[in-house]
């Protein structure tokens, strides 16, 4: 359930055409919080790539799927939580590729790991769905 103290809560469909507006909202929040340019860029990349993973791997291209994004502040950190309601996904199976392997896929998970301080994946309890929780130091 979305928490009352979230700085940003967005509910949107798993439609790639929504990505731009999600990025814009995350960028605006980062700037409002006084994050550095690099921190804002990192937040935008991490959220965009995590949303893409949900669209491609959880909903497998079904644009009707629902995604909830919540961003909260926890001291000097931001906690970013993305929730979907698709069948359980084994995120370990879509881990990052080694950078020396030159192939088109597998960069998204690497980008997430490179831009946030912590990232964890799990399944929702008592209902179908998955979550991605990321944490990033901003001060």
């Amino acid at each position, binding site marked *: 359930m979305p928490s009352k103290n979230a700085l940003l809560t967005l509910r949107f469909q798993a439609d790639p055409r929504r990505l*731009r507006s999600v990025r814009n909202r995350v960028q605006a929040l980062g700037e409002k919080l006084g994050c550095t340019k690099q921190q804002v860029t990192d937040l935008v990349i991490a959220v965009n790539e995590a949303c893409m993973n949900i669209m491609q791997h959880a909903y497998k291209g079904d644009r009707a799927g629902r995604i909830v994004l919540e961003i909260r502040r926890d001291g000097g950190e931001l906690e970013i939580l993305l929730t979907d309601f698709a069948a359980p996904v084994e995120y370990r199976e879509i881990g990052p590729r080694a950078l020396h392997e*030159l192939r*088109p896929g597998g960069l998204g998970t690497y980008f997430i790991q490179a831009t946030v301080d912590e990232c964890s994946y799990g399944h929702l309890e008592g209902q179908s769905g998955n979550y991605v929780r990321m944490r990033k130091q901003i001060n």
Partner: protein
Amino acid sequence: MPYKIKKDAGFAIVELTGDIDLSCSPEARKVILECLSDRLPTLVDLSAVTYIDSSGVASLVEGYQTAKKKSLEFGLLGVSEAALSVLELARLDKVFPIYASLKERLAKNA
């Protein structure tokens, strides 16, 4: 993603514009691969790209690999700051040949 293809000095030049994300990267991939399938050395102009995500980068990697298999040239032109930061993150800035402009690329032959 508005795009333009022009032919200049024997190259196909694909000019991509705006945000290259999952909503348009399949189209970018298609356009790049079509140029290569016409056996044209291909340069992708990223000077007007405001954002590129991993799916957009994957389209460039696929273009690079396809060109290599066909023994065709593939490179990037005028990479914007936003696109360069993502290529650097993926450590691909040292993989793709990158030129400031077509003029710089042509000067290589001079």
